[in-house]
């Protein structure tokens, strides 16, 4: 269905009036709700200029927010790179014709898609602490990276697999007719095409990684949300602090999501290569019919 206009008739004069009334009521209700929240925060003194002023000082940013942003970006960047490597290995492994390899990869992927990221982070954090694997300064960072890499690696493996499976059969058949081996077919024919169609989904996966660094909050990782609460505790301005962190997060993630849909639209317009996968639809090709994954 293209556009939602088929769902209803073009509004006539009466419908236009009705739509306007509904619009006005909706806006009034929304503003009323926002005003109630605003006035209550105001009454509690959370919105006075004094509570916002610290955000104009370099000290707050230098001590709290910038280290938080740095933590979030470091964890996200390292995790997405490692997850891409792991995901491609597992995804290709799962497509392998060696039953042992494909079976192992399938179990690995399904297991790590079923276990919450937080459980993996807690496990990795305490594992590294017990065996002194990393210096204690980097314990939380290593825990976050491990959790995010394992989970997103499993999700990317499924994206790779469905990307390759979605290619026309003729591609692999032509390759084998030319005498290419399985590895050559994968490397030279299938993966390059699959990567193009996967691009929008991989960009949206970056949003998931960025958001999920916040789970590190619970293993004392210094990321944006943790630093937001630290600001709140230091200046007793929880609401402004969390609002600023939320705005920063939404700005970055919204830009990335938008970029993903732009890439998808461009790929869809081009006549070369396979159709791109949808940027914001969950991947649902798990062996059990419905695995968790996608952009949630």
């Amino acid at each position, binding site marked *: 269905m293209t556009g939602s206009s088929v769902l209803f008739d073009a509004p006539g004069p009466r419908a236009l009036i009705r739509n306007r009334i509904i619009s006005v009521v*909706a806006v009034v209700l929304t503003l009323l709700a926002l005003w109630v929240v605003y006035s209550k925060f105001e009454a509690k003194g959370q919105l006075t200029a004094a509570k916002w002023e610290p955000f104009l000082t370099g000290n707050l940013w230098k001590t709290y927010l910038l280290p938080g942003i740095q933590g979030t970006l470091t964890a996200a960047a390292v995790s997405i790179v490692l997850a891409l490597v792991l995901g491609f290995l597992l995804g290709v492994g799962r497509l392998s014709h060696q039953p042992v390899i494909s079976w192992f990869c399938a179990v690995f992927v399904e297991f790590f898609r*079923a276990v919450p990221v937080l*459980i993996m982070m807690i496990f990795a954090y*305490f594992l590294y602490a017990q065996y002194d694997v990393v210096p204690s300064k980097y314990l939380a960072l290593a825990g976050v990276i491990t959790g995010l890499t394992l989970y997103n690696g499993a999700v990317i493996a499924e994206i790779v697999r469905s990307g390759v499976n979605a290619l026309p059969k003729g591609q692999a058949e032509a390759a084998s007719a030319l005498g290419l081996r399985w590895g050559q077919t994968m490397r030279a024919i299938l993966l390059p095409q699959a990567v193009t169609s996967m691009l929008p989904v991989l960009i949206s996966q970056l949003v998931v990684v960025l958001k999920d660094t916040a*789970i590190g909050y*619970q293993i004392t990782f210094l990321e944006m949300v943790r630093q937001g609460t630290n600001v709140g505790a230091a200046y007793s301005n929880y609401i402004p602090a969390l609002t600023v*962190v939320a705005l920063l997060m939404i700005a970055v993630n919204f830009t990335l999501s938008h970029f993903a849909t732009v890439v998808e639209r461009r790929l869809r317009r081009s006549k070369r290569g396979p159709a791109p996968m949808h940027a914001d*639809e969950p991947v649902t090709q798990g062996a059990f019919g419905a695995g968790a994954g996608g952009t949630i």
Partner: protein
Amino acid sequence: MLHFGDNAYDLVGAFWTTIQLTFLSAIGALILGTLLAAMRLSPVPMLAWLGTAYVNVVRNTPLTLILLFCSFGLAGTLGITLVDRNSPTSIDDSNFRLAVLGLSVYTAAFVCETVRSGVNTVPLGQAEAARSLGFTFSQNLRIVLLPQAFRSVLIPLGSVLIALTKNTTIASAIGVAEAALLMKAMVENQADLLLISGIFAAGFVVLTLPMGLLFGWLGKRLAVAR
């Protein structure tokens, strides 16, 4: 009760809380998400805009932040605790209910997008036929589009609910006594890290795999034959 040395841990109770969080938030998210989808599809541009704004804001915010907002903002600052202050378990109940609220609000954005993509799978002729019979938009949506849309997105909807099950662990950030909070307490006090983590990981596999199988089966069985 699970005994480790001298300590006993209420493993079943923690997972029961996880299940309750999942179930209640799933209901909340399905209702709110369907409403949002209806708003985004509606002929009133303002409602569509509001629905889009909600989805874009909520989908791009970390769940931890939403739950902390519920805890610090609603309960801490506004005093909206969703409980009777005089009840003896008011703090635990308040955290639990705020977590359900936060999880519902967050998951609703994803339910909305899933339902909307389901409506897009319904062939044009269905909506056109409904309109030519004189159905209003809400009749069209209620009687023709949504029933078919839900049946075609059961599998992705299952994925969203599985993700919700796993996301309930984040409720431990505001002190809800569910599985992840118990796991943290256990690994801090006991030595058997591998065993404890294995138990909790297995617990979640046991919760999510049947859900995946159920929704996969339902999705195939109830798919609209076209």
